[in-house]
């Protein structure tokens, strides 16, 4: 009896293993979406584009993967399937994946002080890796982009006072709160993570680490990750991937950090990514922060029409990688939205309507 059960379980695992589709050089093609729900999705994502006023929803790329197969893919010129598109703050979640590999190699613990790996953080000796991953360093950071360019820490970091050494610029910030107590979205926190990784690995290994640890194992061949003058990857903003390659990261996350037979990211790392930061107050941002990923958790849910297990990497001007493990869906959306009219929930709602059998 027990033997029989065991055989049945083994058989099930084997069948599942064989049924699982993974991208090889290229993605496999599934049955393409059709019907009125697809038209509604197209109408929302690819509304006629006004390049003079740059108003409205301006999607550059939309790619939907189900069960590891492409079921929808569309681009707006000049973006194409081979364009390594700027991901802006999606880069932050990519850095979380890269750090996940280092975490699996026991390079650091979540409770480690950042100063152990990055000496300029001795100014803030109690800030931990987990605090940075939660955007809860307590550093006094102003994230506004266009609306407050004078006071914006991000603009100063990327283009003026901070650009030679972005992590040091962030480390030199004042504090507004004790570490780990309050959420404040900060590109500075993300670049401190990048500098901490450099400290763990040493400069030489660090310079190829995103490729060695993440991109190459996933079959990503065209990734660019820009660095500051101190050769620290700009983890806050400057990773470039094709939509198809970003979807590989989505599939990795949808399958709990596993790529084919290899557990690339430890399962407890992905669980940390997907666990809401406890001191986040509803409404502080457009979604609930986890460990350098955005979660559809809380009351009300940030995206009520999407399942509660949805999580995402989000970036400026409409960049997004959405993952829905239960639905076995990965969605990449690149955009050039210059106003706030694009809605994550609306896009997800229409994708979900279009993929219903």
């Amino acid at each position, binding site marked *: 009896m027990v033997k029989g059960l065991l055989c049945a379980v083994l058989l099930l695992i084997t069948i599942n293993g064989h049924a699982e589709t993974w991208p090889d050089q290229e993605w496999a093609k599934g049955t393409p979406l059709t019907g009125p729900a697809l038209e509604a999705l197209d109408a929302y994502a690819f509304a006629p584009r006004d390049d003079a006023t740059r108003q409205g929803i301006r999607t550059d790329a939309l790619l939907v993967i189900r069960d590891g197969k492409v079921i929808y893919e569309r681009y707006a010129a*000049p973006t194409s399937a081979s364009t390594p598109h700027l991901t802006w703050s999606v880069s932050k979640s990519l850095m979380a994946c890269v750090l996940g590999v280092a975490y699996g190699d026991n390079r650091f613990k979540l409770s480690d002080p950042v100063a152990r790996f990055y000496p300029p953080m001795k100014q803030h000796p109690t800030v931990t890796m987990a605090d940075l991953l939660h955007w809860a360093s307590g550093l006094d950071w102003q994230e506004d982009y266009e609306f407050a*360019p004078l*006071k914006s820490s991000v603009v100063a970091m990327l283009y003026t006072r901070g650009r030679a050494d972005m992590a040091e610029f962030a480390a030199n910030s004042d504090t507004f709160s004790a570490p780990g107590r309050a959420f404040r979205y900060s590109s500075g926190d993300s670049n401190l993570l990048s500098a901490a990784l450099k400290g763990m690995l040493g400069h030489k290994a660090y310079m190829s680490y995103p490729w060695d640890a993440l991109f190459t194992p996933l079959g990503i061949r065209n990734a660019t990750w820009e660095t500051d*003058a101190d050769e620290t990857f700009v983890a806050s903003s400057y990773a470039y991937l094709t939509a198809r390659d970003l979807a590989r990261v989505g599939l990795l996350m949808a399958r709990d950090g596993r790529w084919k037979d290899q557990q690339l990211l430890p399962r407890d790392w992905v669980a940390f990514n997907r666990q809401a930061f406890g001191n986040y107050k509803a409404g502080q941002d457009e979604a609930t922060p986890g460990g350098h990923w955005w979660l559809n958790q809380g009351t009300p849910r940030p995206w009520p029409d999407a399942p509660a297990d949805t999580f995402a990497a989000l970036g400026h001007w409409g960049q997004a990688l959405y993952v829905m493990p239960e639905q076995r869906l990965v969605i990449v959306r690149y955009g050039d939205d210059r106003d706030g009219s694009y809605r994550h929930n609306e896009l997800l709602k229409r994708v979900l309507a279009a993929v219903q059998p």
Partner: protein
Amino acid sequence: MIRRRPFTSLFLLLLLALLGWVWHERVNLQAFPDIIAAYTAKEYCSCRYVANNPAAYCLGYVKQYLPTSAFNDNPLRSEVTASGLGRTHTARWLGERQGCRLNP
């Protein structure tokens, strides 16, 4: 003084407040004019040489409400220079993996 010259007093008070603010924000104010040239040079460079978009598209892509006074894209050196608000910045493409970076 305040009663006899209410407007002059108010003006002096506002001027004092303004000077206080300028002093308080001196670091930010000094860096501010660099933004448009640095932004334009860096983001055009990446648009053109990392994402491989056409030049005309990238010019539109980096356009902001502040104008640039000069712009030069040197495809032979993959180097982009932009000027605005009296400051000039250059970004250069370094390679496939490292993309573009502003020159120091």
